[in-house]
């Protein structure tokens, strides 16, 4: 409730500027009143969450953090099923020491029968991972997550894997048919405290703000996608289906409480076909990279 009150007060002072940004996206369509943007971003409820950090920046002045110098640490990792939280055995984990999956992995490990593995990762520096299982078994879908950051004091790290059953049943429940030559983007909308943000809406665009025609956005309820949920619920989770391969941006909008919408966060995502590409968005962050407190340099 506290976060909601703060936000309501704050929204009045910034709505004009943020609405302009929304309009920029609308202008890419010839009929703004029926544009794809309007069909995706229309939430009127103000968000519930701590939005105080938003005052510190917007787009050109997104929040910037100065992390301490990165160093290699060894973490005990575990591969966890996204839906059931069950461990995923015999999963191949490929770690890339960069904020995107590109080229050969820097680390490769295989989870044991309990889903556990050990890996050396760069602490306080965003890295990416790709989790897959034997494609012949058809048990899981390739799951990719960028902007993974472990703190200097991290000892454990959980990597998501999406089972084929979950991957298949989600479209059936949502009434969507994913194209295998396109990818799925999923993630969580976070507030300034790093808690899930309720009443946010997501749109994936290219660098020019264009929305792929095939894009379908859905939100979760109780950690499961819902056809009738129109914005993030308490869990903050979202899924965007049928995004063509390539570089895209996840945009998080909320209502300004006055009929407009505010761009609260962005996160770049490299989408691979026939896979789950995880990219979360953090209020006031424009790069999807939010360092844990142990990584922030103190003066």
């Amino acid at each position, binding site marked *: 409730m506290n976060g909601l009150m703060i936000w309501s007060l704050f929204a009045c002072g910034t709505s004009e500027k943020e609405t302009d940004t929304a309009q920029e996206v609308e202008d890419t369509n010839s009929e703004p009143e029926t544009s794809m943007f309007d069909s995706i971003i229309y939430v009127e409820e103000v968000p519930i969450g701590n939005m105080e950090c938003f005052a510190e920046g917007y787009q050109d002045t997104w929040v910037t953090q100065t992390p301490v110098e990165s160093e290699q640490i060894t973490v005990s990792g575990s591969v966890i099923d996204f*839906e059931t939280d069950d461990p995923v055995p015999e999963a191949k984990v490929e770690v890339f020491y960069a904020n995107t999956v590109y080229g050969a992995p820097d680390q490769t490990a295989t989870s044991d029968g309990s889903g556990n593995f050990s890996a050396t990762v760069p602490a306080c520096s965003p890295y990416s991972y790709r989790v897959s299982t034997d494609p012949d078994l058809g048990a899981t879908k390739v799951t990719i997550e960028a902007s993974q950051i472990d703190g200097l004091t991290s000892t454990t790290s959980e990597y998501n894997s999406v089972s*084929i*059953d*979950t991957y*298949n*049943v*989600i*479209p*059936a*429940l*949502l*009434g*969507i*048919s*994913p*194209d*295998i030559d396109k990818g799925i983007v999923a993630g969580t909308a976070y507030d300034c405290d790093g808690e899930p943000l309720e009443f946010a809406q997501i749109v994936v665009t290219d660098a020019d703000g264009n929305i792929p025609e*095939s894009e*379908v956005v859905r939100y*979760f*309820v*109780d950690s*499961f*996608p*819902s*056809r*009738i*949920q129109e914005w993030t*619920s308490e869990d903050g989770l979202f899924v965007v289906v*049928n995004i063509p391969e390539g570089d895209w941006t996840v945009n998080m909008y909320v209502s300004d409480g006055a009929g407009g919408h505010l761009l609260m966060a962005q996160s770049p995502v490299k989408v691979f076909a026939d896979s789950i590409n995880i990219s979360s968005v953090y209020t006031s962050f424009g790069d999807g990279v939010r360092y844990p407190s142990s990584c922030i340099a103190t003066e």
Partner: protein
Amino acid sequence: MLFLFGLLSSAFAAEDDFEYSLEGYYRARGYSFLNLYADQEGPGSFVAQRLRLQPQLDYKDQSGVSRAKFIMMADVIDDVVWGDNQSLASTALFAGDPSNTGMNGSLSGINIKRAWMEFDAKLGKIRVGRMESHWGLGLLANHGNGFDDNFGENHTGATFDRFFFATQPIKVVQTILKQDVQEIPFYMGYAFDRLVEDPLIQYKGYSCEEGIADGDPDFDPRCDSNGDGLTDLDHSYTDDSRTEDNRGSDWTFDNADDVTEHVFFAIYSNKETPIAGTNGELTAGVYAINRTQGETNSNVWIYDAYLRFLWNSIYLEGEYLTITGQSSAIALPGAYDPTSEAVDPLRKDVNIVGYVGRMGYKTKKLSAVLETGYASGDENVADGIFTGRPLSPDFNVGLIIYDQVLANASSKAWGSTAEALWSQGSVYNSRYLHPVISYSPKDNMEILLGYVHVWPDRPDGAIIQCAEGDMLNGEALDCAQYGATADDIGWEIDVAFKTRLHNHILFSLEAGYAQVTDRIKLSNVGLNENGSFSTLQTRFAYEF
């Protein structure tokens, strides 16, 4: 098993008042698909076999009238795929002993599917036990016995744990009134079915999240089992983590979670009904079923009407069913709205329709029948109205579109999460037209030619793609995507040659070609993307 029944037969034969008989069949069906799967290189083929035994003990009175029977049905080899598929041999090349691997890929054991008794009472006939269930064309209740379809094979069979009573009410009244008893083939009956005693899925009706303190708006005292002011339970509206180990000693006495049904039926059936001066066949009946489960507030009524008419080669046959009521038992993950103000977010109203109608001309040598059928679908399983239910998987229509393509599409979509929503090869979320011409050049021989054309009922956007212009209840169907351009799902042509040799040997050779449109996203299902499918299937069966 045969040995066991042989012993039983010998033992009871000494009493000289039992008659032992054995019915059943052995069948081997070969399947070959030229281009079913996307990654298929050349024709793919396999053979599946079944040995079904139905021994029967029949007590007859001194006048030779059957008075009491015990009947059992066991599938000793239950759709087992030919070959050693469990790596019994150290290397496949030297495999010698075949395994009992079923068509679903898992080991198949001896399956005693049915066992029931049947006896005469003063007012009628009573059956008690685990028995087959069949009505009309078998759209809903289909025993799956034998080889009753033009194309395809039976694989399941409706079976219920049931108390069954049937009587001829007119005959009873005539007897009570001491009037002359006239044989009027009108039957009425009642059955009680126990479908579930203790479902492992525990219905809660509310969800719990762990770690919420008293005072928090989301605190629910039902989730605080130890009353310490902090929720310690964590579950959704249902708890499907329950196992057999969680059952208490009194699990059979908890009636709230039982699923039961009451069945009422009335039917007139006479193969020699006088019609306009000649005899014809007339069967007409209705049944009603009330299925309930207390804890999920499930109360569903099933109504089914059946008619069969054959007179002077004019043939009519049809069955119409509707399922209405409400239930909170359909707990698909995410398929509810917890923010709803409804008392029970899981509640769904049920409104399902299915029918098949046939009309045509039938003689001993030649028949031409036009069949149309329908199974209502559900465009949105997440909403509060549940409208989809396929027809029985043993009501076979064609060889490819329903039996393979929609079966693959629905099982792929729902996965193991919701197997109850698989079509299993049955008529699913669609309507069809199916003309069939049959010619019998000899008494033991039949040649069939069939055509099937299938249209979607309620495209769901996942299994059946939406197209611009799709309508629902007079309004444009609201879909997230409109990926299809075709109106129909597809069509297929099937041919069959069937013969019976030496009274007991059944041989069938069936072939089909189908063209499926973009209503099914074949690439997602792993099927051949060009939508052209062909199959050749054959059956050898020994029926006894």
